[in-house]
């Protein structure tokens, strides 16, 4: 108990936990829209595509500030989104193929640049590879402030455009027939999702970031039948996983924070798929049994 108290009052823990909670909250909210728009995998593409941006930002500026690196990540992340959407719109290649193509090319380029930068005689490049799997313990107070500000702006957009996002996620063609600009409504949510991913890179890394986007949303969908409830629950699940993951990795030596957070959020999702009322697997099995018993008791079914 004393040990737990000691962890909670520890300044580093507080910083990392706050950062992870923020990340979980933001990715939960925007992930809900990604999942409902059937663009779950877009997050995976964007996060992988962020790697060359990080390394290029460093190679070009020689500065290792998180802000500069994430700006690079944002640019290549957006570029990748742009390519994926462009390929889908202007060719007969489907979304999944376009995504796989762009994602592997960008990630490959990122790895090439990373290896190149590590061969440079300058020692300053050490630590860039933390963006692959993330390293929450490197979160500083100023990183938290950055996350907080970006998160606030993102959530503000979601609140302002709530009605439009809802309509556009459900029926984009009808939205267009009402005169809402499909261009704006296609780009804005994608842009916000990209931003949410970039915010999380330092904590969970490019490889695992898409789980933070998808898992809270999938879990929340199981428990809710209203969009606002789904979004709130996804935010709570995300934030909770952030805190629990940080707590676990601070309590046991050798547990990396980012991956532990991802494991937590995946467990929540798995549990939700299993036990949620109505949509859960167990409830469905129970219902089927009950229906069969009823049919048999009424003289139907197998004799």
């Amino acid at each position: 108990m004393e040990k737990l108290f000691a962890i909670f009052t520890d300044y580093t823990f507080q910083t990392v936990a706050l950062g992870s909670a923020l990340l979980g909250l933001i990715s939960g909210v925007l992930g809900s829209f990604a999942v409902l728009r059937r663009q779950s995998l877009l997050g995976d593409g964007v996060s992988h595509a962020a790697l060359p941006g990080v390394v290029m930002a460093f190679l070009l500026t020689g500065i290792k500030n998180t802000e500069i690196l994430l700006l690079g990540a944002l640019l290549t992340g957006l570029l990748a989104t742009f390519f994926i959407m462009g390929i889908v719109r202007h060719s007969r290649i489907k979304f999944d193929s376009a995504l796989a193509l762009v994602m592997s090319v960008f990630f490959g380029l990122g790895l090439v640049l990373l290896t190149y930068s590590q061969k440079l005689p300058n020692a300053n490049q050490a630590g860039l590879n933390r963006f692959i799997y993330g390293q929450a313990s490197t979160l500083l107070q100023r990183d938290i402030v950055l996350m907080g500000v970006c998160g606030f702006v993102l959530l503000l957009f979601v609140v302002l455009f709530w009605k439009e996002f809802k309509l556009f996620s459900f029926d984009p063609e009808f939205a267009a027939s009402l005169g809402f600009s499909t261009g704006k409504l296609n780009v804005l949510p994608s842009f916000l999702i990209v931003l949410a991913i970039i915010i999380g890179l330092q904590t969970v890394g490019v490889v695992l970031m898409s789980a933070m986007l998808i898992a809270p949303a999938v879990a929340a969908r199981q428990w809710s039948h209203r969009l606002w409830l789904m979004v709130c629950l996804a935010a709570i699940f995300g934030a909770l996983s952030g805190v629990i993951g940080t707590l676990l990795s601070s309590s046991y030596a050798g547990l990396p924070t980012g991956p532990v957070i991802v494991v937590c959020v995946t467990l929540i999702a798995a549990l939700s798929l299993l036990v949620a009322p109505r949509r859960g697997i167990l409830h469905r099995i129970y219902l089927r049994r009950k229906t069969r018993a009823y049919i048999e008791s009424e003289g139907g079914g197998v004799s």
Partner: protein
Amino acid sequence: MKEKDFAVRVHDLSVAYDMKPVLWDIDLSIPRGKLVAIVGPNGAGKTTLIKVMLGLMKPVSGAVDFGEPMTKKLRKQIAYVPQSGSVDWDFPTTVLDVVMMGRYGHLGWFTRPGKAEKKLALDMLEKVGMQAFASRQISQLSGGQQQRIFLARALIQQADIYFMDEPFKGVDAQTERSLVALLKDLKEQGKTVVVVHHDLQTVEDYFDWVTLINLHVMANGPVKEVFHEENLARTYGGRGLLLKGAQ
């Protein structure tokens, strides 16, 4: 200038997907205040035609003319019932919410639907016989119920022209009759209703104007004048007689 007598016109309209033409040199005029059926075989370009009219697809050539420029004001006068299969019905929302979406164009950016929209949505649900389902989760609806929700969502737009893509698909016969009565009411109020329709048997009962298309416009006129075997045979490539049944 005399009052325009058409609801919508298209001139020299051609649409193609990858060099393959779907609509070819379409010229037609749809009169105001009529119940109009767009009829043709599968792949004839019916859905494409109404999507182009709605501005959802860009034609390769040609133009759509509502008699005035496409402004926000005109947009509000155009309602759309897409095929119900075009959306994910597992979306987490209620029947009432979906119907209220029909008012979003009137509300414009940022404004949220309020009491007035809710009341209107309930009225429209009553018209399509779905008021008991208002707070229902949409994933629990049958195909016919989904169609009726989409119809209610178009009715709430209180438009002048309605474009409907197979609104009777999956609807039982009794409900279909009540929905047709609803469309006839709209016509009585001077609205124009353009319906992509599949059932040749009911064209004469339901509609007063018909557009037969199959890549080209095969016929466009009052049902009594143009909905005959010769035109149907041309549209369906000789199978029209069979399709129309014993008459």
